[in-house]
């Protein structure tokens, strides 16, 4: 063991020196503005005959009008269910004929879309995109079908421990705030949605203000600009929907147990997190990586799974929204042992808060996080997704070059400080779904 180890430490230093440049070099991002003023990032890549487009509009499910919970998600699903003269079957057949994949989905803050097309068929692909954006039909029959499927999914989610845990957590953390609402909506509101309401929602959200676009693949600048103006040009400039109100994080600890007849309980724990533009962001990323991010090297993985066999999966992650940020930890363990798993997770949070991370952990996290950027450049779609996430976070393309320096500048003390700032389990919300032994709701409901 030791011989392998020693040579590795040297190797790590070497890899740190060159990886950032290599990863950034692989993504040569051009920033263009089309004649109609649409801003787009492009990575031209002729290695496969494919074009991938990733885009999003400002405004998501958190701004669903009162009494219309679910309208944005349902509208997003229906955009590809018929447009212009093509009904749902004809639209999908057309997609299949020209091998185009086109889909929309809504998150709390944004309405996103992705287009993938063989470069030989790019014109047909962008034409289908134009139709979906500008002439969606919302045929009553398709509205009924998607509504029924959505309600069915809501029903099933109520029996899946992980879904129940996730939903319960968001409801508890964001009580009284729009983020508490299920992005898929509620049965009651879904049942009142009409084609007309869906059309109106599309008209409000599908506007060029706040539109973010990134493209990857076998396409040149001039042609991309032309095709984007064709697809998005008929949309009005409009205005960006107002942001949800500010969020006040919970200040008291809370445990919620939701009973479900399953042998294994799912546990999720959440604390207020850190905003993407906070100067301590990368210190937090490193802290999270050591605690429970990234996989099989984390402290939680080691303590909960490797040493004690308490769970198959245990992890932590930073989540950011337009108006909130969370640190979420999750695991799943037999009903009899989930209490112990939660205790170990909390003990690890406390240890990190008191002692921070070691020099070795800091160095290892830096190497991983620097190298991991290249690991995500696996397909046209994933590169377009990476660009889109930079755009959503308000970063510029040079961030990919700066990122390595920002990571390597993080010091032990920075991680200690952010651990003390974030890992305050006196404000932690815990949700356990199953039949946990020895875990009860506190305060009592």
């Amino acid at each position, binding site marked *: 063991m030791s011989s392998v180890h020693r040579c590795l430490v040297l190797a790590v230093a070497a890899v740190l020196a060159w990886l950032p440049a290599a990863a950034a070099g692989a993504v040569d991002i051009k920033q263009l503005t089309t004649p109609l003023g649409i801003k787009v990032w492009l990575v031209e890549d002729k290695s496969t005959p494919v074009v991938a487009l990733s885009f999003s509009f400002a405004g998501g499910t958190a701004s669903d009008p009162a009494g219309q919970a679910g309208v944005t998600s349902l509208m997003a699903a229906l955009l590809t269910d018929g447009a212009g003269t093509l009904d749902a079957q004809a639209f999908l*057949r057309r997609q299949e004929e020209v091998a185009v994949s086109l889909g929309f989905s809504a998150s709390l803050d944004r309405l996103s879309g992705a287009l993938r097309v063989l470069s030989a068929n790019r014109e047909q692909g962008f034409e289908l995109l134009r139709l979906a954006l500008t002439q969606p039909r919302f045929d009553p029959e398709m509205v009924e079908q998607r509504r029924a499927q959505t309600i069915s999914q809501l029903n099933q989610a109520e029996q899946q421990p992980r879904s129940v845990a996730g939903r319960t957590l968001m409801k508890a953390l964001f009580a009284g705030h729009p983020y508490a609402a299920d992005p898929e909506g509620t049965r009651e509101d879904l049942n009142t949605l009409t084609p007309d309401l869906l059309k109106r929602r599309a008209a409000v959200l599908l506007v060029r203000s706040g539109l973010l676009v990134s493209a990857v693949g076998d396409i040149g600048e001039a042609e991309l600009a032309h095709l984007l103006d064709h697809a998005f040009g008929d949309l009005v400039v409009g205005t960006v929907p107002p942001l949800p109100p500010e969020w006040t994080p919970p200040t008291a600890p809370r445990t919620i147990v939701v009973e479900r007849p399953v042998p294994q309980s799912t546990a999720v724990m959440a604390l207020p997190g850190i905003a993407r533009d906070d100067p301590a962001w990368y210190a937090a990323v490193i802290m999270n990586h050591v605690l429970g991010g990234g996989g099989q090297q984390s402290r939680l993985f080691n303590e909960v799974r490797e040493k004690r066999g308490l769970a*198959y999966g245990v992890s932590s992650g930073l989540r950011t929204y337009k108006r909130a940020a969370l640190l979420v930890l999750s695991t799943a363990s037999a009903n009899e042992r989930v209490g112990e798993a939660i205790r170990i997770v909390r003990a690890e949070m406390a240890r990190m808060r008191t002692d921070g991370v070691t020099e070795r952990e800091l160095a*290892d996290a830096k190497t991983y996080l620097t190298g991991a950027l290249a690991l995500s450049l696996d397909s046209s779609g994933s590169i377009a997704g990476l660009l889109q996430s930079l755009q959503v976070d308000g970063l510029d393309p040079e961030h990919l070059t700066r990122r390595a320096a920002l990571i390597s500048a993080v010091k032990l003390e920075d991680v200690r400080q952010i651990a003390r700032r974030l890992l305050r389990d006196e404000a932690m919300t815990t949700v356990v779904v199953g039949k946990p032994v020895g875990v009860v709701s506190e305060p009592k409901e």
Partner: protein
Amino acid sequence: MTLRRRALLGGLAAGAAVSPSVPALAKLLTVGRRPAESFTLANGLQVVVLPSRRAPIVTQVLVYKVGSADETFGHTGVAHFLEHMMFKGTDKVAPGEFSRIVSRNGGRDNAYTTYDSTGYHQTVAPDRLDLVMRMEADRMVNLRIAEKDLVSERQVVLEERRMRTDNVPAALLNEAVNEQLFGRHKPYAMPIIGYADDIRRLSINELTAFYRRFYSPGNAVLIVAGDTTPEVVRKLAQKHYGPIPNRRVEVRRRPAQGGTDLPQRVSRGDARVVEPRWSREWLAPSYRKGDTKHAYALQVLARLFGGSETSRLWRAMVADNKLALSAYAGYSPTSLGLTSFGVGIQPVLTRTVMEIEAAVDFEMKKLVDGGVTADEVERAQNQLLAGAIYAQDSLASGPRIYGAVLSTGGTMAEIDAWPERIAAVTPADVVAAARVVWRDSGAVTALLTPAEGSR
């Protein structure tokens, strides 16, 4: 090569005012395919290199030709448990260190077990390929299993089983379906992860015996994809895997028959189910076992019958007759033994199971008696071939395809010929395949419902 591809694409674009023809797509796939190179070391290790310069990363996948179908009843879960224990160290790498070393070198790693194969993979920067090959070769022969690691990992595997199966009513029903379809106590009838009682009993001796029996260079395929060259891979593979002596591994056998008492019906009423599901699985030939000549037509059949929302089944059940919320058909030919062809329906709540079955039977009969059109076969072929072109856009899918085919008795030539073979399927082939597979004597019908009285 690049020029020829460009020219072809130009031709495609011109002809694509309607849609690219199936032969054109098949040609595009063949010509556009990245050059794959394969060679075999003296000890029998087959090596495949799939170069791609897209990103400065390289993926190593080592696939052993052994899976859960090589276990026996009463001793299930060994292949998967061993996959877990392969991370528990050798003389040179401490328990749990393997993944930590990959991570601190900027990489990611994991592993998987299927019925027929067990794979270990890492994605790293190109100059770390030497390191991960050294470690992967090391654990091919030098695995050390300590009692204390076995004890804690047993709990991990049981938690994995709870998460994937015991907490999931559909997965529990699926175990019952496979027992009937493939015949109790036979390969493919038993779950990959194993039965909980077997996992509880598994000993170090069993794991070690399984490891010695199957983990050998001549019983493995090494696939390296990404930013590297065949020359580099050949040199590194020779250096790390080359010195490992081959051991004779017995030829794996799979039964020619499945369940003997078919057709069967299985059902599960479960308090955790809110909406019913109906499905039917038929024993089906794979690339390797049974009436293998139908394996390509069955892929086209699955696609046109229930592969998308324009398929026959979806249109009949969901779009036109409003009997169901969703409908699908599925078939995977990559198996050393027999495989299955499946159809699944999520009924509208007001419809009865009898109505659903009658409607599915009607659609099947219509296809078998009335045939399929050249147009719908061509559209299905188009979708399959386009899917394969998109697969080439992802670094992960090449190793996955090569690993699955080469570990189940397939060849490089077969992978190369796939586009032409799919393109060659005729409407008559599709109907003939449907007739062979859609037989009562090979079917298990499954019903998942809410628990009695819970609604």
